[in-house]
């Protein structure tokens, strides 16, 4: 019964592939937990203070947590409005023949290695920010946030453009048929219908912003400090990833120092997981008006 055999083989092959993908995520989480266990048991709540001084055995990650949240908020706040408007332009206003061209260009942007963005950031953005705001140094949290916004823009544009473009034409026709203006069709009909997929695009961008290392590391100044007042982002700071990028190679494997670094990685994963779960719950990613 060859049909039955190929069917079984095919089913197991698919199952096996899924298990590998799920296993990788599970293994990463497990590894992070195992290696950060020493830091958790040795330092406990001390891990959430602001002092990071490995020779003295102080491993407070608050500054890094702050930096990560700050650059991500800046990046998303800048990239989402621009990205969404660009997506609307490409999908609804631009003539169809330009759509593919513009989209391929944007997808090209998404493939540029982050070190390139980092070098551009060091050579230009940090200088501009320094000059505009008359700072001692342009290596600030804001610079990191702007650079990240540029990096996640292509992702947000191309994915939310897909979301809007995939809304079936009957909705457009029905809305125009009711005599709505074009902006009403876009904002009152298409965007609400595409909402879940747009949220997915923003989440993917947010995840990339949080996990980005190289570009941020080069422009943020890398000092473990929470600015005062806390919303002053025109001073140097540190993110979890930039800290890891700079320090992980200099910590001896198995030390509390190393373990505390891994703990920061664990925190990053937990934050991204948390945001994804909350978003799924509130935006109901699975509910669509069309299939």
């Amino acid at each position, binding site marked *: 019964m060859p049909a039955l055999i190929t069917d079984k083989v095919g089913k197991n092959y698919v199952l096996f592939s899924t298990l590998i993908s799920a296993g990788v995520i599970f293994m990463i989480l497990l590894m992070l937990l195992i290696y950060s266990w020493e830091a958790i048991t040795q330092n406990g709540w001390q891990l959430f203070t602001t002092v990071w*001084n*490995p*020779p003295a055995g102080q491993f407070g990650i608050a500054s890094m947590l702050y930096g990560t949240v700050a650059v991500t908020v800046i990046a998303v706040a800048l990239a989402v409005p621009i990205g969404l408007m660009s997506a609307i332009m490409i999908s609804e206003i631009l003539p169809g023949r330009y759509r593919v061209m513009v989209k391929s260009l944007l997808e090209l942007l998404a493939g540029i290695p982050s070190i390139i963005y980092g070098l551009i950031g*060091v050579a230009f953005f*940090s*200088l501009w920010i*320094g000059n505009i705001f008359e700072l*001692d*140094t*342009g*290596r600030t949290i804001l610079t990191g946030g702007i650079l990240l916004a540029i990096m996640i823009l292509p992702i947000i544009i191309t994915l939310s453009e897909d979301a809007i473009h995939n809304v079936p034409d009957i909705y457009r026709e029905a809305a125009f048929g009711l005599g709505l203006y074009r902006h009403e069709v876009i904002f009152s009909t298409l965007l609400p219908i595409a909402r879940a997929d747009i949220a997915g695009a923003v989440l993917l961008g947010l995840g990339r912003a949080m996990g980005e290392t190289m570009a941020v590391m*080069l422009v943020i*100044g*890398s*000092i*473990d400090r929470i600015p005062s007042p806390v919303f002053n982002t025109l001073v*140097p700071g540190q993110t979890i990833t930039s800290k890891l990028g*700079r*320090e992980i*190679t*200099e*910590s*001896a*494997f198995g*030390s509390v120092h190393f373990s505390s670094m891994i703990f920061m990685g664990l925190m990053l994963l937990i934050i991204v997981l948390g945001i994804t779960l909350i978003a799924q719950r509130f935006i109901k990613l699975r509910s669509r008006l069309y299939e």
Partner: protein
Amino acid sequence: MSYKWLAALSCLFLLVLYACTNKESIHIDGSTTVLPIIAEVAEEFRSQYPDIRLIVNAGGSGVAVHQVGAGRVHIGMISRDLTEFEKASYPQADFVTHIIGRDAVIPAVSKYVYDAGVRQLSIDQLRAIYTGEITNWAEVGGPDRHILVIDKERSRGTRHVFMEVITGHPEAEAPGADLVLGANNELQTAIMQSNSAIGVLSWAWLNENVRGLAVITDDGEIIEPTKENIRNGQFPIIRNIELITNGQPSGIASDFIDFVLSEQGQKKVEDFGYARVDN
């Protein structure tokens, strides 16, 4: 069509395998201070021994110790002496150091600050700047500007040597720091881009826009950061640049170290502004 692709990929894979197995390779990692010399010496070494692959990276002195201790690289480049803590971290490793030259750690400032009259600082002033007691250039005879203090990553050899001299402790904290950067070129760029920065660099990294300062010793003597003063050991912030191996080097690693210590290698050390070690 798909078979062609598969065949091409397999060929590529085999080629990579071939490239990996054919030559003996030596991995070198460590200080960006030592990198320029070793990179050049490695170039000459390669032309004399074309069958050997030398892979040179630079992640800082601390990285070199960890990598050599963990057996991931054959030769480490360090721009300071090993600390007791590091030796204790790798009890199973037998670190052997090979001194290949001598270098100075020089306080470097932006051209603007230098031109405005800051030409030398005392050890006390340097300490006050890095601990945050002095925050304006006017306090040390410069323009009325905030001092942008650039610290280095903690594991960097340059920082160890500098902190040892100004505070007496190689891993002292620097609460006055505004930025923490890593490699010499990163610092060089940041100092160049600023109008008010101070950082510490090796002699080889100073240039028109990144000017080295003279250091006033505790005896009140002003010592310029010149090649002569580094060679004769007059400059107060001085260090050895060393290669480290895990155990006595053998085979190619040993050949390479001998090559660095040979007349040809030592000439390169001098070319880069470091002082040679006389055997």
